[in-house]
Protein backbone atom coordinates (compact mmCIF):
# COMPACT_ATOMS: atom_id res chain seq x y z
CA UNK A 1 0.00 0.00 0.00
CA UNK A 2 2.85 2.28 0.94
CA UNK A 3 4.26 1.75 -2.55
CA UNK A 4 1.09 2.98 -4.24
CA UNK A 5 1.01 6.20 -2.23
CA UNK A 6 4.66 6.73 -3.02
CA UNK A 7 3.95 6.42 -6.72
CA UNK A 8 1.85 9.58 -6.71
CA UNK A 9 4.88 11.60 -5.71
CA UNK A 10 6.17 11.20 -9.23
CA UNK A 11 4.76 13.93 -11.41
CA UNK A 12 4.79 11.72 -14.52
CA UNK A 13 2.43 9.30 -12.77
CA UNK A 14 0.03 12.11 -11.89
CA UNK A 15 0.16 13.42 -15.46
CA UNK A 16 -0.50 9.98 -16.92
CA UNK A 17 -3.38 9.46 -14.47
CA UNK A 18 -4.98 12.78 -15.32
CA UNK A 19 -4.68 12.55 -19.09
CA UNK A 20 -5.47 8.84 -19.06
CA UNK A 21 -8.65 9.32 -17.05
CA UNK A 22 -9.90 12.14 -19.25
CA UNK A 23 -9.09 10.36 -22.49
CA UNK A 24 -10.65 7.10 -21.31
CA UNK A 25 -13.93 8.90 -20.52
CA UNK A 26 -13.94 10.62 -23.93
CA UNK A 27 -12.98 7.45 -25.77
CA UNK A 28 -15.79 5.53 -24.04
CA UNK A 29 -18.41 8.14 -24.96
CA UNK A 30 -17.35 8.31 -28.60
CA UNK A 31 -16.73 4.57 -28.70
CA UNK A 32 -20.37 3.69 -27.98
CA UNK A 33 -21.48 5.50 -31.14
CA UNK A 34 -18.57 4.14 -33.18
CA UNK A 35 -19.28 0.54 -32.17
CA UNK A 36 -23.01 0.86 -32.78
CA UNK A 37 -22.48 2.50 -36.17
CA UNK A 38 -20.08 -0.30 -37.12
CA UNK A 39 -17.09 2.05 -37.25
CA UNK A 40 -15.13 0.12 -34.61
CA UNK A 41 -11.98 -0.08 -36.68
CA UNK A 42 -11.78 3.67 -37.25
CA UNK A 43 -9.76 4.08 -34.03
CA UNK A 44 -7.28 1.51 -35.25
CA UNK A 45 -6.84 3.29 -38.56
CA UNK A 46 -6.49 6.69 -36.93
CA UNK A 47 -3.92 5.58 -34.36
CA UNK A 48 -1.76 4.00 -37.05
CA UNK A 49 -1.92 7.23 -39.02
CA UNK A 50 -0.98 8.98 -35.78
CA UNK A 51 2.09 6.75 -35.44
CA UNK A 52 3.18 7.46 -39.01
CA UNK A 53 2.80 11.18 -38.37
CA UNK A 54 4.79 11.01 -35.12
CA UNK A 55 7.59 9.12 -36.82
CA UNK A 56 7.78 11.71 -39.59
CA UNK A 57 7.70 14.55 -37.03
CA UNK A 58 10.55 13.00 -35.03
CA UNK A 59 12.64 12.54 -38.17
CA UNK A 60 12.10 16.18 -39.15
CA UNK A 61 12.63 17.44 -35.58
CA UNK A 62 9.16 18.95 -35.38
CA UNK A 63 6.84 19.00 -32.36
CA UNK A 64 5.13 15.57 -32.66
CA UNK A 65 1.56 16.65 -31.90
CA UNK A 66 1.66 19.61 -34.29
CA UNK A 67 2.15 17.11 -37.09
CA UNK A 68 0.06 14.25 -35.75
CA UNK A 69 -3.12 16.24 -35.01
CA UNK A 70 -3.71 17.76 -38.46
CA UNK A 71 -2.73 14.56 -40.27
CA UNK A 72 -4.99 12.39 -38.12
CA UNK A 73 -7.88 14.82 -38.53
CA UNK A 74 -7.34 14.65 -42.28
CA UNK A 75 -7.29 10.85 -42.12
CA UNK A 76 -10.56 10.84 -40.17
CA UNK A 77 -12.20 12.95 -42.87
CA UNK A 78 -10.81 10.79 -45.67
CA UNK A 79 -11.98 7.59 -43.94
CA UNK A 80 -15.51 8.95 -43.63
CA UNK A 81 -15.64 10.05 -47.25
CA UNK A 82 -14.21 6.75 -48.52
CA UNK A 83 -16.82 4.89 -46.52
CA UNK A 84 -19.61 7.07 -47.91
CA UNK A 85 -18.86 7.04 -51.62
CA UNK A 86 -19.00 3.25 -51.61
CA UNK A 87 -16.33 2.64 -54.25
CA UNK A 88 -14.04 1.22 -51.59
CA UNK A 89 -15.79 -0.55 -48.73
CA UNK A 90 -15.37 1.25 -45.41
CA UNK A 91 -13.47 -1.53 -43.62
CA UNK A 92 -11.16 -2.14 -46.57
CA UNK A 93 -10.45 1.60 -46.77
CA UNK A 94 -9.43 1.63 -43.11
CA UNK A 95 -7.19 -1.41 -43.54
CA UNK A 96 -5.38 0.14 -46.51
CA UNK A 97 -4.92 3.52 -44.87
CA UNK A 98 -3.81 2.16 -41.50
CA UNK A 99 -1.27 -0.36 -42.80
CA UNK A 100 0.14 2.20 -45.25
CA UNK A 101 0.58 4.80 -42.51
CA UNK A 102 2.18 2.23 -40.22
CA UNK A 103 4.55 1.14 -43.01
CA UNK A 104 5.56 4.75 -43.69
CA UNK A 105 6.20 5.26 -39.97
CA UNK A 106 8.33 2.11 -39.73
CA UNK A 107 10.40 3.04 -42.80
CA UNK A 108 11.00 6.58 -41.53
CA UNK A 109 11.97 5.29 -38.08
CA UNK A 110 14.40 2.67 -39.36
CA UNK A 111 15.99 5.13 -41.81
CA UNK A 112 16.61 7.76 -39.15
CA UNK A 113 17.07 6.79 -35.53
CA UNK A 114 16.30 3.07 -35.49
CA UNK A 115 13.97 1.42 -32.98
CA UNK A 116 14.67 2.95 -29.59
CA UNK A 117 12.66 3.28 -26.41
CA UNK A 118 10.78 6.33 -27.73
CA UNK A 119 9.48 4.40 -30.70
CA UNK A 120 8.55 1.49 -28.45
CA UNK A 121 6.56 3.94 -26.35
CA UNK A 122 4.70 5.23 -29.39
CA UNK A 123 3.85 1.72 -30.51
CA UNK A 124 2.92 0.09 -27.21
CA UNK A 125 2.29 2.97 -24.85
CA UNK A 126 4.31 4.40 -22.02
CA UNK A 127 3.47 5.97 -18.73
CA UNK A 128 6.49 8.22 -19.11
CA UNK A 129 5.37 9.71 -22.40
CA UNK A 130 2.82 12.26 -21.15
CA UNK A 131 4.46 15.68 -21.18
CA UNK A 132 3.17 18.93 -19.66
CA UNK A 133 1.95 20.16 -23.04
CA UNK A 134 0.10 16.85 -23.49
CA UNK A 135 -1.71 17.57 -20.23
CA UNK A 136 -2.91 20.98 -21.43
CA UNK A 137 -3.98 19.51 -24.74
CA UNK A 138 -5.64 16.55 -23.06
CA UNK A 139 -7.65 18.76 -20.70
CA UNK A 140 -8.68 21.03 -23.58
CA UNK A 141 -9.79 18.15 -25.78
CA UNK A 142 -11.62 16.45 -22.90
CA UNK A 143 -13.56 19.65 -22.15
CA UNK A 144 -14.43 20.03 -25.84
CA UNK A 145 -15.63 16.43 -26.14
CA UNK A 146 -17.63 16.48 -22.90
CA UNK A 147 -19.35 19.79 -23.60
CA UNK A 148 -20.22 18.89 -27.20
CA UNK A 149 -21.41 15.45 -26.12
CA UNK A 150 -23.77 16.83 -23.50
CA UNK A 151 -25.07 19.62 -25.75
CA UNK A 152 -25.68 17.33 -28.73
CA UNK A 153 -26.54 14.19 -26.77
CA UNK A 154 -30.07 13.85 -28.16
CA UNK A 155 -28.89 14.37 -31.73
CA UNK A 156 -26.02 11.92 -31.29
CA UNK A 157 -28.51 9.35 -30.01
CA UNK A 158 -30.88 9.87 -32.94
CA UNK A 159 -28.10 9.63 -35.51
CA UNK A 160 -26.53 6.57 -33.91
CA UNK A 161 -29.84 4.74 -33.77
CA UNK A 162 -31.27 5.68 -37.14
CA UNK A 163 -29.48 8.00 -39.52
CA UNK A 164 -32.24 7.98 -42.17
CA UNK A 165 -34.89 9.06 -39.68
CA UNK A 166 -32.63 11.73 -38.19
CA UNK A 167 -32.02 13.17 -41.67
CA UNK A 168 -35.70 13.07 -42.50
CA UNK A 169 -36.60 15.20 -39.49
CA UNK A 170 -33.99 17.76 -40.40
CA UNK A 171 -30.81 16.82 -38.51
CA UNK A 172 -27.67 17.61 -40.49
CA UNK A 173 -26.24 14.10 -40.11
CA UNK A 174 -23.12 14.77 -42.21
CA UNK A 175 -22.09 17.54 -39.85
CA UNK A 176 -22.42 15.38 -36.75
CA UNK A 177 -20.67 12.43 -38.37
CA UNK A 178 -17.74 14.66 -39.27
CA UNK A 179 -17.75 16.01 -35.71
CA UNK A 180 -17.69 12.47 -34.32
CA UNK A 181 -14.74 11.52 -36.54
CA UNK A 182 -12.83 14.70 -35.71
CA UNK A 183 -13.28 14.30 -31.95
CA UNK A 184 -12.26 10.64 -32.24
CA UNK A 185 -9.10 11.69 -34.08
CA UNK A 186 -8.17 14.17 -31.31
CA UNK A 187 -8.80 11.63 -28.55
CA UNK A 188 -6.79 9.01 -30.41
CA UNK A 189 -3.77 11.28 -30.86
CA UNK A 190 -3.58 12.19 -27.19
CA UNK A 191 -4.67 8.79 -25.88
CA UNK A 192 -2.04 6.93 -27.88
CA UNK A 193 0.73 8.47 -25.78
CA UNK A 194 -0.39 6.18 -22.98
CA UNK A 195 -2.02 3.35 -24.93
CA UNK A 196 0.37 3.15 -27.88
CA UNK A 197 -0.61 3.19 -31.54
CA UNK A 198 -1.13 -0.57 -31.71
CA UNK A 199 -3.58 -0.73 -28.80
CA UNK A 200 -5.37 2.63 -28.85
CA UNK A 201 -8.52 1.33 -30.54
CA UNK A 202 -9.20 -0.91 -27.53
CA UNK A 203 -9.93 2.21 -25.47
CA UNK A 204 -12.75 3.06 -27.90
CA UNK A 205 -14.20 -0.41 -28.36
CA UNK A 206 -13.83 -2.38 -25.12
CA UNK A 207 -15.78 -0.16 -22.68
CA UNK A 208 -18.64 0.16 -25.18
CA UNK A 209 -19.11 -3.56 -25.75
CA UNK A 210 -18.68 -4.27 -22.05
CA UNK A 211 -21.38 -1.74 -21.16
CA UNK A 212 -23.73 -2.99 -23.91
CA UNK A 213 -23.57 -6.45 -22.33
CA UNK A 214 -24.85 -5.16 -19.01
CA UNK A 215 -27.25 -2.30 -19.82
CA UNK A 216 -29.97 -1.91 -22.37
CA UNK A 217 -30.75 1.79 -22.30
CA UNK A 218 -28.53 4.25 -24.14
CA UNK A 219 -28.00 6.57 -21.19
CA UNK A 220 -26.98 3.76 -18.81
CA UNK A 221 -24.76 2.21 -21.46
CA UNK A 222 -22.86 5.46 -21.87
CA UNK A 223 -22.45 6.09 -18.16
CA UNK A 224 -21.37 2.48 -17.62
CA UNK A 225 -18.89 2.62 -20.53
CA UNK A 226 -17.24 5.75 -19.12
CA UNK A 227 -17.04 4.20 -15.64
CA UNK A 228 -15.67 0.88 -16.87
CA UNK A 229 -13.16 2.75 -19.01
CA UNK A 230 -11.81 4.78 -16.07
CA UNK A 231 -11.68 1.79 -13.69
CA UNK A 232 -9.83 -0.31 -16.26
CA UNK A 233 -7.41 2.51 -16.98
CA UNK A 234 -6.59 2.92 -13.30
CA UNK A 235 -6.23 -0.83 -12.82
CA UNK A 236 -4.09 -1.04 -15.94
CA UNK A 237 -1.82 1.83 -14.90
CA UNK A 238 -1.36 0.24 -11.50
CA UNK A 239 -0.57 -3.11 -13.07
CA UNK A 240 1.87 -1.44 -15.41
CA UNK A 241 3.75 0.18 -12.51
CA UNK A 242 3.67 -2.83 -10.20
CA UNK A 243 4.70 -5.44 -12.76
CA UNK A 244 6.78 -3.17 -15.05
CA UNK A 245 4.80 -4.08 -18.16
CA UNK A 246 3.92 -1.69 -21.01
CA UNK A 247 0.99 0.53 -20.05
CA UNK A 248 -1.15 -0.04 -23.13
CA UNK A 249 -1.01 -3.82 -22.87
CA UNK A 250 -1.78 -3.69 -19.17
CA UNK A 251 -4.88 -1.51 -19.75
CA UNK A 252 -6.12 -3.80 -22.52
CA UNK A 253 -5.81 -6.78 -20.18
CA UNK A 254 -7.85 -4.95 -17.53
CA UNK A 255 -10.51 -4.26 -20.18
CA UNK A 256 -10.50 -7.88 -21.29
CA UNK A 257 -11.12 -9.02 -17.73
CA UNK A 258 -13.94 -6.47 -17.36
CA UNK A 259 -15.52 -7.71 -20.59
CA UNK A 260 -15.27 -11.33 -19.44
CA UNK A 261 -16.97 -10.39 -16.16
CA UNK A 262 -19.69 -8.52 -18.05
CA UNK A 263 -20.34 -11.59 -20.18
CA UNK A 264 -20.85 -13.62 -17.03
CA UNK A 265 -23.11 -11.17 -15.19
CA UNK A 266 -24.74 -9.57 -18.29
CA UNK A 267 -27.49 -10.91 -20.47
Amino acid at each position, binding site marked *: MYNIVELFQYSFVVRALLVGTLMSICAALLGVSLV*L*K*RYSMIGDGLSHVGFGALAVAMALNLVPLYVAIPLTLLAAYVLLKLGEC*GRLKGDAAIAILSSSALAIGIIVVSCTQGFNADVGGYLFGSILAVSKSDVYLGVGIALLVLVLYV*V*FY*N*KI*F*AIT*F*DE*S*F*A*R*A*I*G*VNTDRYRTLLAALTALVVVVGMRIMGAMLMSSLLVFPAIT*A*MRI*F*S*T*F*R*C*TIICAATVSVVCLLAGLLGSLLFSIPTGASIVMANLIAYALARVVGR
Partner: protein
Amino acid sequence: MDAFSANSIIVAEDVSITYDGRIAVSNVNLSVDAGDYLCIIGENGSGKSTLMKGLLGIVNLADGCVRLTCLQRSQIGYLPQRTPAQRDFPASVFEIVLSGRLNRQGVLSFYTDEDRAQVRENLAYLQVDELADEPYRNLSGGQKQRVLLARALCASERVLMLDEPVAGLDPIMTGELQMLLDKLNKERKLTIVMISHDVVSAVRCANKILHMHKSPLFFGKTADYVETDIYKKLVACIHV
Protein backbone atom coordinates in the same frame (compact mmCIF):
# COMPACT_ATOMS: atom_id res chain seq x y z
CA MET B 1 -55.56 13.47 -64.41
CA ASP B 2 -57.90 14.11 -61.51
CA ALA B 3 -55.42 12.58 -59.08
CA PHE B 4 -53.69 15.98 -59.23
CA SER B 5 -55.56 18.74 -57.47
CA ALA B 6 -55.07 22.29 -56.30
CA ASN B 7 -54.94 21.56 -52.58
CA SER B 8 -52.07 19.10 -52.69
CA ILE B 9 -49.57 19.22 -49.85
CA ILE B 10 -46.82 17.21 -51.60
CA VAL B 11 -46.21 17.54 -55.32
CA ALA B 12 -43.40 15.87 -57.25
CA GLU B 13 -42.65 17.21 -60.73
CA ASP B 14 -40.54 15.20 -63.18
CA VAL B 15 -38.45 13.80 -60.34
CA SER B 16 -35.39 11.76 -61.34
CA ILE B 17 -32.86 10.32 -58.90
CA THR B 18 -29.56 8.58 -59.57
CA TYR B 19 -28.13 6.02 -57.20
CA ASP B 20 -24.53 4.79 -57.48
CA GLY B 21 -24.30 6.44 -60.89
CA ARG B 22 -27.37 4.63 -62.26
CA ILE B 23 -30.84 6.03 -62.78
CA ALA B 24 -33.01 4.63 -59.99
CA VAL B 25 -36.07 6.84 -60.47
CA SER B 26 -37.05 8.77 -63.55
CA ASN B 27 -39.81 11.21 -64.44
CA VAL B 28 -42.09 10.74 -61.47
CA ASN B 29 -45.04 13.07 -61.19
CA LEU B 30 -47.32 12.70 -58.24
CA SER B 31 -49.41 14.68 -55.84
CA VAL B 32 -50.61 13.93 -52.35
CA ASP B 33 -53.57 15.75 -50.79
CA ALA B 34 -54.19 16.17 -47.09
CA GLY B 35 -55.89 12.99 -45.84
CA ASP B 36 -54.74 10.83 -48.74
CA TYR B 37 -53.61 7.24 -48.30
CA LEU B 38 -51.11 6.60 -51.10
CA CYS B 39 -49.57 3.19 -51.61
CA ILE B 40 -46.41 2.89 -53.69
CA ILE B 41 -46.11 -0.59 -55.14
CA GLY B 42 -43.66 -2.25 -57.51
CA GLU B 43 -41.02 -4.96 -57.73
CA ASN B 44 -37.76 -5.01 -55.79
CA GLY B 45 -35.36 -2.44 -57.17
CA SER B 46 -38.12 -0.45 -58.88
CA GLY B 47 -37.04 2.73 -57.09
CA LYS B 48 -39.78 2.89 -54.43
CA SER B 49 -37.50 3.50 -51.45
CA THR B 50 -35.28 5.88 -53.37
CA LEU B 51 -38.31 7.90 -54.45
CA MET B 52 -39.50 8.14 -50.84
CA LYS B 53 -36.05 9.31 -49.76
CA GLY B 54 -36.17 11.88 -52.53
CA LEU B 55 -39.55 13.16 -51.29
CA LEU B 56 -38.09 13.40 -47.77
CA GLY B 57 -34.96 15.19 -48.95
CA ILE B 58 -32.64 12.45 -47.68
CA VAL B 59 -31.21 11.90 -51.17
CA ASN B 60 -30.61 14.61 -53.74
CA LEU B 61 -32.73 14.80 -56.86
CA ALA B 62 -30.92 14.55 -60.20
CA ASP B 63 -33.77 16.38 -61.88
CA GLY B 64 -37.21 17.82 -61.18
CA CYS B 65 -38.49 19.16 -57.88
CA VAL B 66 -40.59 18.32 -54.84
CA ARG B 67 -42.90 21.06 -53.63
CA LEU B 68 -44.44 21.04 -50.19
CA THR B 69 -47.41 23.30 -49.42
CA CYS B 70 -48.12 24.36 -45.82
CA LEU B 71 -45.74 21.64 -44.73
CA GLN B 72 -42.11 21.57 -43.75
CA ARG B 73 -39.91 18.68 -44.66
CA SER B 74 -38.95 18.01 -41.07
CA GLN B 75 -42.69 17.69 -40.23
CA ILE B 76 -43.03 14.41 -42.06
CA GLY B 77 -42.92 11.32 -39.85
CA TYR B 78 -40.75 8.68 -41.48
CA LEU B 79 -40.59 4.96 -40.77
CA PRO B 80 -37.52 3.68 -42.63
CA GLN B 81 -36.56 0.10 -43.30
CA ARG B 82 -34.89 -1.49 -40.33
CA THR B 83 -31.07 -1.59 -40.27
CA PRO B 84 -28.92 -4.46 -38.96
CA ALA B 85 -27.30 -2.12 -36.40
CA GLN B 86 -30.63 -1.73 -34.60
CA ARG B 87 -30.85 -5.42 -33.72
CA ASP B 88 -28.57 -5.20 -30.66
CA PHE B 89 -28.91 -1.48 -30.01
CA PRO B 90 -28.99 -0.62 -26.29
CA ALA B 91 -31.91 1.78 -25.97
CA SER B 92 -35.24 1.81 -24.20
CA VAL B 93 -38.49 2.19 -26.12
CA PHE B 94 -39.00 5.58 -24.46
CA GLU B 95 -35.61 6.90 -25.57
CA ILE B 96 -36.30 5.89 -29.16
CA VAL B 97 -39.80 7.33 -29.37
CA LEU B 98 -38.62 10.56 -27.71
CA SER B 99 -36.09 11.06 -30.50
CA GLY B 100 -39.08 11.68 -32.79
CA ARG B 101 -39.54 15.04 -31.06
CA LEU B 102 -36.10 16.19 -32.19
CA ASN B 103 -37.56 18.21 -35.06
CA ARG B 104 -39.09 20.61 -32.53
CA GLN B 105 -35.69 21.42 -31.06
CA GLY B 106 -33.23 24.09 -32.05
CA VAL B 107 -29.47 23.73 -32.05
CA LEU B 108 -29.50 23.03 -28.34
CA SER B 109 -31.83 20.08 -28.03
CA PHE B 110 -33.26 19.30 -24.63
CA TYR B 111 -36.66 17.66 -24.33
CA THR B 112 -39.45 19.18 -22.26
CA ASP B 113 -42.22 17.60 -20.18
CA GLU B 114 -44.56 18.26 -23.08
CA ASP B 115 -42.34 16.13 -25.32
CA ARG B 116 -42.43 13.31 -22.79
CA ALA B 117 -46.21 13.56 -22.41
CA GLN B 118 -46.57 13.34 -26.18
CA VAL B 119 -44.45 10.19 -26.21
CA ARG B 120 -46.69 8.56 -23.59
CA GLU B 121 -49.82 9.55 -25.48
CA ASN B 122 -48.59 8.09 -28.76
CA LEU B 123 -47.40 4.89 -27.08
CA ALA B 124 -50.84 4.55 -25.51
CA TYR B 125 -52.62 5.21 -28.80
CA LEU B 126 -50.62 2.40 -30.41
CA GLN B 127 -51.27 0.16 -27.37
CA VAL B 128 -47.62 -0.26 -26.48
CA ASP B 129 -47.50 2.03 -23.43
CA GLU B 130 -46.58 -0.84 -21.14
CA LEU B 131 -43.40 -1.33 -23.19
CA ALA B 132 -42.05 2.19 -22.49
CA ASP B 133 -39.21 1.08 -20.23
CA GLU B 134 -38.45 -2.15 -22.08
CA PRO B 135 -35.20 -2.58 -23.99
CA TYR B 136 -35.93 -2.14 -27.70
CA ARG B 137 -33.70 -5.07 -28.67
CA ASN B 138 -35.88 -7.52 -26.71
CA LEU B 139 -39.11 -6.68 -28.58
CA SER B 140 -40.79 -8.78 -31.26
CA GLY B 141 -40.84 -7.58 -34.87
CA GLY B 142 -44.41 -6.29 -34.61
CA GLN B 143 -43.72 -4.45 -31.37
CA LYS B 144 -40.62 -2.84 -32.87
CA GLN B 145 -42.65 -1.54 -35.81
CA ARG B 146 -45.27 -0.06 -33.48
CA VAL B 147 -42.53 1.66 -31.51
CA LEU B 148 -41.02 3.12 -34.69
CA LEU B 149 -44.53 4.16 -35.75
CA ALA B 150 -44.93 5.94 -32.40
CA ARG B 151 -41.64 7.75 -33.07
CA ALA B 152 -42.90 8.80 -36.50
CA LEU B 153 -46.14 10.06 -34.89
CA CYS B 154 -44.08 12.09 -32.43
CA ALA B 155 -42.36 13.73 -35.38
CA SER B 156 -45.57 14.52 -37.23
CA GLU B 157 -49.27 14.78 -36.62
CA ARG B 158 -50.01 15.25 -40.29
CA VAL B 159 -47.97 13.12 -42.71
CA LEU B 160 -46.42 9.67 -42.35
CA MET B 161 -44.11 8.05 -44.88
CA LEU B 162 -43.59 4.34 -44.30
CA ASP B 163 -41.09 2.15 -46.10
CA GLU B 164 -42.42 -1.42 -46.11
CA PRO B 165 -43.62 -1.34 -42.50
CA VAL B 166 -44.94 -4.90 -42.58
CA ALA B 167 -41.84 -6.53 -44.11
CA GLY B 168 -40.88 -9.61 -42.13
CA LEU B 169 -43.99 -9.61 -39.93
CA ASP B 170 -46.30 -12.61 -39.58
CA PRO B 171 -49.82 -12.34 -41.07
CA ILE B 172 -51.51 -11.49 -37.75
CA MET B 173 -49.10 -8.67 -36.93
CA THR B 174 -49.31 -7.45 -40.52
CA GLY B 175 -53.10 -7.24 -40.22
CA GLU B 176 -52.90 -5.41 -36.89
CA LEU B 177 -50.43 -2.86 -38.19
CA GLN B 178 -52.53 -2.25 -41.29
CA MET B 179 -55.60 -1.71 -39.12
CA LEU B 180 -53.67 0.80 -37.03
CA LEU B 181 -52.63 2.73 -40.11
CA ASP B 182 -56.21 2.69 -41.36
CA LYS B 183 -57.33 4.06 -38.01
CA LEU B 184 -54.70 6.81 -38.07
CA ASN B 185 -55.80 7.79 -41.56
CA LYS B 186 -59.50 7.88 -40.70
CA GLU B 187 -59.52 9.02 -37.05
CA ARG B 188 -56.60 11.41 -36.97
CA LYS B 189 -56.88 12.43 -40.64
CA LEU B 190 -53.22 11.57 -41.11
CA THR B 191 -51.89 11.60 -44.63
CA ILE B 192 -50.14 8.31 -45.30
CA VAL B 193 -47.63 7.43 -48.00
CA MET B 194 -46.66 3.79 -47.76
CA ILE B 195 -44.43 1.48 -49.74
CA SER B 196 -45.91 -1.99 -49.91
CA HIS B 197 -45.29 -5.33 -51.51
CA ASP B 198 -48.82 -6.50 -50.96
CA VAL B 199 -50.97 -5.29 -53.87
CA VAL B 200 -54.19 -6.76 -52.52
CA SER B 201 -54.08 -4.94 -49.21
CA ALA B 202 -52.73 -1.80 -50.87
CA VAL B 203 -55.83 -1.67 -53.08
CA ARG B 204 -58.05 -2.30 -50.06
CA CYS B 205 -56.57 0.48 -47.89
CA ALA B 206 -55.31 3.20 -50.17
CA ASN B 207 -57.28 5.80 -52.10
CA LYS B 208 -54.34 6.41 -54.45
CA ILE B 209 -51.83 4.05 -56.03
CA LEU B 210 -48.42 4.68 -57.55
CA HIS B 211 -47.10 1.65 -59.41
CA MET B 212 -43.35 2.10 -59.91
CA HIS B 213 -40.99 0.55 -62.38
CA LYS B 214 -38.21 3.17 -62.23
CA SER B 215 -40.79 5.50 -63.69
CA PRO B 216 -44.49 5.33 -62.87
CA LEU B 217 -46.52 2.68 -64.69
CA PHE B 218 -49.62 4.10 -63.04
CA PHE B 219 -50.46 6.97 -60.74
CA GLY B 220 -54.01 7.78 -59.82
CA LYS B 221 -57.05 6.76 -57.87
CA THR B 222 -57.34 3.19 -56.65
CA ALA B 223 -60.74 2.85 -58.34
CA ASP B 224 -59.07 3.55 -61.68
CA TYR B 225 -56.06 1.37 -60.91
CA VAL B 226 -58.13 -1.79 -60.42
CA GLU B 227 -59.46 -1.37 -63.98
CA THR B 228 -55.96 -1.36 -65.53
CA ASP B 229 -54.31 -4.29 -67.29
CA ILE B 230 -51.24 -3.97 -65.00
CA TYR B 231 -53.37 -4.65 -61.96
CA LYS B 232 -55.38 -7.43 -63.57
CA LYS B 233 -52.19 -9.20 -64.69
CA LEU B 234 -50.67 -8.83 -61.25
CA VAL B 235 -53.73 -10.22 -59.49
CA ALA B 236 -53.96 -13.08 -62.00
CA CYS B 237 -50.33 -13.98 -61.11
CA ILE B 238 -51.13 -13.99 -57.39
CA HIS B 239 -54.21 -16.19 -57.72
CA VAL B 240 -52.57 -18.81 -59.99
